[in-house]
């Protein structure tokens, strides 16, 4: 993962990358900045005009109606201008933000398609998913807020300051001197509540994992009569959460009243000074109202900016998480001189193959194996013995660390991955189906297949009859959780999917349990049909399958410890014989 960098440095490089993402929309950015400037200018202008208008309304008989009418027109024009430019600015900001977010998502997704399986096997899917969805979403919120509030905030502060200085620099100085107080107060509260928030979120995390564990396994709680102990454990965390929660919620809610208080003090100060200036004649009443108006608004952009800063920090952290995913080393691209492996006869050779998942844990050290076209190889052994490793290497999901692996005489790293995989058909126990119709799923490996071809493949995979019984036949949509199709039926669909492609080499994973007997018979029939005349590697649990194999590889801890036919291995009296006896010897 990313090396530890100093936070500031990390932010700077992240900011640079975010800016790079925005670069294609430079025109829109300039437009939105211009609109922001117009909006701020006219927003500040409106109170000045209304202040002037107030000065025309002095008292009975002292009202300048002609001047008032002129100012009213000017003000109407100003606010109309504000409204239009503000709306356009919002629209442009939205457009930029969502466009950037879209680009970022696509980049991250493209990365997903070239990530090594080594990475994917080591990380939970939820992690990458939350980066592509939640993190990008959070980033977009922060970006949008930054666009809409940061620039206008800064401009508003500067503009207000300018106008105030212009009207009366002494009062303006008082406002400028007092306003930072509210920022200090906010900062003070934020730093002091941070630790409370941390305690609260830690306690909350503790509670969440307890609830996930206990309520998530409520059936077991019930089965073991664990209820009262569960309640006692929960109540402890619950009370902890209450205690630290009250503190965190209370102290964090101090920010608004406290800054509002500072604001009120500023307001009072402006009132006094303004009133005296008015008596002295250096300020009109209208100008005083402008001042009061500004004093009221002046702290708002400061508070906004501090909000935006936290939000932006958060957004940058999210962006960094997305960039981390995008930066993961992708798979080694196909060699530039890689050739296309033609559909061949299906021979496979392992020559001194060496492979380790972790560099310091030996796994396959020197594997040699020669498989002739049409041979059937059964892989046997206890769970975790490395049967799936062979699948990973053959499909080139993982790269071998030494030696050579050849298909039809071609070393697999000298041919393109796609052409290699076109030669191999795979039916795994974890049956993955796409969200889509049955027909789409069967045609997954051959998107241009006709309906006849699809039906033909389904028939040969023994899947046709159950498909016909589904409400919409081949057009039935496979639910995400596969609720409408049983595990065994899913496996039949996976077989049909491979059947349509007719690859010369097969990798099959026999189901251990979870399939009902009737469907299991169908699956075996389908497997038989599929294997006709093809080279096949089959991860086998069933003795009948094993016995029919041309060669049995008995695996233990990543190594082939015995090989031969069923009879040879039994005669040898080794590990295989022991496995066999344990199942059939009488107790």
């Amino acid at each position, binding site marked *: 993962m990313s090396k530890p960098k100093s936070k500031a440095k990390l932010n700077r490089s992240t900011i640079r990358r975010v800016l790079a993402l925005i670069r294609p929309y430079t025109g829109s950015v300039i437009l939105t900045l211009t609109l922001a400037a117009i909006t701020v200018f006219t927003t500040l202008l409106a109170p000045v005009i209304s202040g002037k208008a107030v000065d025309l309304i002095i008292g009975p008989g002292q009202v300048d109606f002609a001047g008032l009418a002129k100012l009213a027109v000017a003000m109407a024009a100003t606010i109309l201008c504000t409204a239009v430019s503000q709306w356009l600015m919002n629209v442009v900001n939205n457009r930029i933000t969502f466009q950037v977010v879209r680009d970022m998502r696509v980049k991250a997704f493209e990365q*997903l398609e070239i990530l090594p399986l080594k990475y994917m096997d080591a990380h939970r899917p939820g992690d990458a998913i939350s980066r592509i969805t939640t993190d990008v979403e959070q980033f977009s919120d922060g970006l949008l807020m930054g666009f809409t509030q940061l620039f206008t905030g800064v401009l508003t502060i500067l503009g207000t300051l300018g106008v105030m200085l212009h009207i009366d620099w002494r009062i303006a100085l008082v406002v400028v001197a007092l306003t930072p107080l509210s920022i200090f107060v906010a900062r003070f509260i934020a730093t002091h509540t941070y630790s409370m928030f941390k305690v609260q979120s830690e306690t909350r995390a503790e509670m969440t*994992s307890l609830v996930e564990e206990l309520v998530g396994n409520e059936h077991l709680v019930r089965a073991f009569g664990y209820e009262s102990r569960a309640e006692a454990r929960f109540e402890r965390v619950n009370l902890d959460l209450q205690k630290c929660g009250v503190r965190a919620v209370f102290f964090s809610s101090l920010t608004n009243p406290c800054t509002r208080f500072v604001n009120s003090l500023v307001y009072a100060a402006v009132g006094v000074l303004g009133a005296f200036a008015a008596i002295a004649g250096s300020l009109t009443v209208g100008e005083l109202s402008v001042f009061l108006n500004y004093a009221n608004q002046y702290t708002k952009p400061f508070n906004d900016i501090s909000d935006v800063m936290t939000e932006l920090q958060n957004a940058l952290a999210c962006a960094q998480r997305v960039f981390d995913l995008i930066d993961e080393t992708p798979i080694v691209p196909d060699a530039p001189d890689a050739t296309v492996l033609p559909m061949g006869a299906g021979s496979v050779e392992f020559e001194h193959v060496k492979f380790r998942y972790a560099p310091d844990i030996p796994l396959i050290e020197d594997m040699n194996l020669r498989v002739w076209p049409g041979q059937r190889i059964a892989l046997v052994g206890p769970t975790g013995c490395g049967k799936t490793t062979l699948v990973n290497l053959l499909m080139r999901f993982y790269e071998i660390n030494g030696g050579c692996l050849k298909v039809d005489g071609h070393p697999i790293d000298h041919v393109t991955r796609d052409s290699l995989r076109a030669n191999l058909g795979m039916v795994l126990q974890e049956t993955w189906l796409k969200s889509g119709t049955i027909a789409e799923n069967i045609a997954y490996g051959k998107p241009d297949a006709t309906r006849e071809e699809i039906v033909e493949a389904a028939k040969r995979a023994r899947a046709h009859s159950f498909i016909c019984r589904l409400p919409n036949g081949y057009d039935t949509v496979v639910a995400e959780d596969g609720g409408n199709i049983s595990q065994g039926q899913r496996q039949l669909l996976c077989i049909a999917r491979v059947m349509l492609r007719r690859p010369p080499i097969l990798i099959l994973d026999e189901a251990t349990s979870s399939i009902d007997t009737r469907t299991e018979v169908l699956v075996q029939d389908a497997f038989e049909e599929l294997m006709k005349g093809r080279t096949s590697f089959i991860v086998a649990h069933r003795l009948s399958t094993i016995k029919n194999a041309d060669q049995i590889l008995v695996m233990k801890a990543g190594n082939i410890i015995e090989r031969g036919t069923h009879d040879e291995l039994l005669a040898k009296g080794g590990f295989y014989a022991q496995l066999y006896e344990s199942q059939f010897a009488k107790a």
Partner: protein
Amino acid sequence: MHKLLRYIKGYEKQALLAPLFKMLEACFELFVPLVVASIIDTGIKNADTVFIWQRCALLVLLAVIGLTCSLTAQYFSAQAALGFGTALRKDLFRHINTLSYSELDGIGTPTLVTRMTSDINQVQNGVNLTLRLLLRSPFIVIGALIMAFTISARLTLLFLAATAIISLIIWLIMRATVPIYHQAQNGLDRVTLLTRENYVGARVVRAFARQADETAAFIETNDHLKSIQVRAGRISALMNPLTYLVVNLTVIALLLLGGREVDTGTLTQGEVIALINYMSQILVNLLRLADLVISVTRALASGMRVNEILNTQTSMADPATRTLPTDSGSDAVCFQNVTFTYRGAGGPSLTDVSFTAHSGETIGVIGGTGSGKTTLIDLVARFYDAQEGTVQLFGHNVKEYGFAQLRELVGIVPQQAMLFTGTIRDNMRWAAPYATDEQIWEALEIAQAADFVRSKPGMLDEPVETAGRNFSGGQRQRLTIARALVPKPKILILDDSASALDFATDAALRKALKDKTTGMTVFIVSQRAASVQRADHILVLDDGLLVGDAPHAELLKNCSVYKEICLSQLSKEEVEKTL
């Protein structure tokens, strides 16, 4: 909804005082424009410096009182909201613990987890927001209207009109955007789905070289999402400019009409400024109210979801009777014409099942997926009640046992080998809180788990991570078997719980169970013929019907379903070899 209100119990005072203090604060805020008006109209006009100082002191005083009120309100509101959340959480947790399997199946445990955590948090936040802010904003709006009325009744009409128009704008925009945001959420769900699919299915996608197509499909979905978001953004972008426009048009009208009144002497200059100030207070608070309404609506929805669970009553109460005598001489388990249908299911999962298991016997249960194996053993443990027929344990109807005694009597090893965070010892004590280390080791020996536990540095103190992630599937299964064995139940149920064990360990486990647990009645549920074939008798289930109840050899002769199962897994010669 009002049912949830009772959880405020113990904090009623805080819940009342919090909004009250907030209103006080709002009152003081409403006085400010009046004070300023008086400074202009009296202080400046008469050049009365003392008056101005007094009025400014009043402004500071109002601010101090406002702050005090506000802090008091925040404190009470935090206490009330957290007190409410804590009580609700406690009660919901206790309530969930009373639900029977039928209710749990209907609701689903993942939902229960979200309702226990994020939903209650939402409700708690909603209570806090409501106490603090929801009353404040309308109060200021109404207060500002009243204040405006005291200044000039005629100009207040203008205020009413502006307030109505702004409210209407906010409402219209919210109404227009809600369905679009809903669409955007669906779009986002689809993006999530595609991402998950491509991550989990990476092997298949690559095996079929479909990466480019998948990316194209993702881009299309993502573009669709983008266009929805832009559309929603375009509408909600209207909110600020439109309301700004209305407020400032009102200000212009105020200046024009107010000017006329000032000219005739019915209004002063300072009062015009005060009216303008009230107008901007109204706008700020209406916008704040719109935000709040969204948050509170969300909290209400969460509240409904929590309430739904609280309203679900258990269908199986603890009979809580005295401990019943369990004579080992009597039949351990006896089913008489039992029929069971899951709630909401179309047909029964078990139909008219009768069998007897004598004390100390090993009973095999076999059948395909959905044949009713797990249902049968769930009835033994009384996780469900049969609609027809009776289930008896040691001569008593299961319904007569108190839950505590029943759980002691029946030990269960579920299909999913699930362990809990803590140590191995904590896990071993799940069913027997006071088990000694010797008892635990004894159980580990039988479950074939003692060796690998002993090889761990912490032995029984070895930590177990969430869901037992730091143990392999086979190790987890053996630990869950040991967990059930610790309290030495009279009836032990193994629900397909040896599937991750290799043949040798599986055999050793079965041998140890037979040798070391004399008197224990053991049910072995499996899809593997090899696992059940040496049981004293085997129950063969087919689509909810008991089609065989005899030892292996006899079933092979008489039971076609059993024979079919055996032959699907073994060759003919091998089947013969088992005889």
